[in-house]
């Protein structure tokens, strides 16, 4: 059983809708959901002004339509499920600590900021700052999983402290910048300056990477932990071939500007 909300009126300006989260609608009647408040630019509006609501409040929420201008979907979520059949706007799953968000299309910038648990899956592309800290904050996501099947832009997982981020396509510059710990897997190649300022943690790339002058080659290895991660990702719908699963990776350590305790693993050969 789920609650369905279909976007029937295109917003003139962006909408902020942290009410589109299972905990906020759970137990509400259909009209209760319609009366939930969102921000449309600087105006307060009702969910019913823009969405056709079907069903009463369940712990599973289905959103239909192009929600690329609807921000904060699933923000602060602790449990339950949100499915977006279409695209989602900025701050998807901001601060979530549990539950699952699935987006069939693309997501915008700031996917899962301040996340501490749960899972966000995006079948299409996502923007900048996926799984990143907000400006000024020294620590990014504290846990959970962000799985992007398409491409992402810059600053993937900046300052992340714990958790897993996987990207099926390409990532932009500064992957895992200022990372404290955690794991980032990028399958389709990444931009420059990966791992700048990283303290600990692992960044894994299936494609060759241009590294900063403060990273040094240490050894090659066939990391066992990676098998577990990749098996898990395979079960989540990523196509992982056997070469990557059992292959040999070159390990670079850095960032020497920090304590040199982080690593970038670059796939070498099978």
């Amino acid at each position, binding site marked *: 059983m789920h609650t369905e909300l279909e976007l029937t009126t295109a917003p003139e300006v962006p909408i902020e809708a942290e009410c589109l989260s299972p905990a906020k609608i759970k137990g509400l009647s259909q009209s209760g959901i319609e009366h939930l408040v969102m921000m449309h630019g600087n105006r307060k509006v009702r969910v019913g002004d823009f969405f056709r609501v079907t069903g009463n409040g369940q712990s599973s929420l289905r959103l239909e339509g192009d929600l690329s201008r609807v921000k904060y979907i699933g923000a602060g979520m602790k449990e339950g499920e949100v499915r977006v059949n279409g695209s989602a706007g900025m701050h998807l799953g901001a601060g979530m600590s549990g539950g699952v968000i699935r987006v069939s299309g693309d997501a915008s910038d700031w996917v899962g900021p301040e996340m501490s648990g749960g899972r966000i899956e995006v079948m299409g592309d996502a923007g*900048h*700052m996926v799984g990143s800290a907000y400006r000024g904050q020294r620590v990014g996501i504290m846990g959970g999983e962000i799985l992007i099947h398409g491409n992402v832009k810059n*600053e993937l997982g900046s300052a992340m402290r714990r958790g897993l981020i996987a990207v099926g396509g390409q990532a932009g510059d500064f992957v895992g910048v200022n990372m404290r710990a955690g794991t980032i897997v990028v399958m389709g190649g990444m931009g420059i300056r990966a791992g700048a300022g990283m303290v600990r943690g692992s960044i894994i790339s299936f494609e060759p990477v241009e590294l900063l002058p403060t990273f040094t080659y240490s050894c090659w290895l066939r990391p066992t932990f990676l098998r577990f991660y990749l098996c898990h990702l395979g079960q989540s719908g990523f196509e992982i071939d056997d070469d990557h699963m059992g292959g040999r990776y070159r390990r670079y350590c850095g960032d020497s500007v920090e304590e040199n305790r982080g690593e970038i693993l670059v796939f070498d050969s099978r």
Partner: protein
Amino acid sequence: MILIPGRSSKQGTSLNAGKLKEEYQTVTSTIEMNESTMRKLGLSAGDRVRLSCATGKVEVECGKPRKDEDLPDGMIFIPYGPSSSELMESDTAGSGMPMSKQMVVDVECLGAN
């Protein structure tokens, strides 16, 4: 080729006269390259040039060549203005700042003015 828009004294002084005046418009639609680059592209001062990238395209005039040591090969300088805007991508990578000083463009010579 890498296009680097920047400030120049001339752009600055012509700004004071007014942006809708001819001088500012001329200054901001004139590019500079070094001698070798110009030679390679078969350009001479005064030629019309089309710059294009994914965002847009624009016609400008080729200015006097700069010495090779002043400007690296493959680099084009242009004072900020409407021409550089036409080529500027709007993605700011979560910073508010478009990439306005390091733009990859194609250069096409349109012949003498």
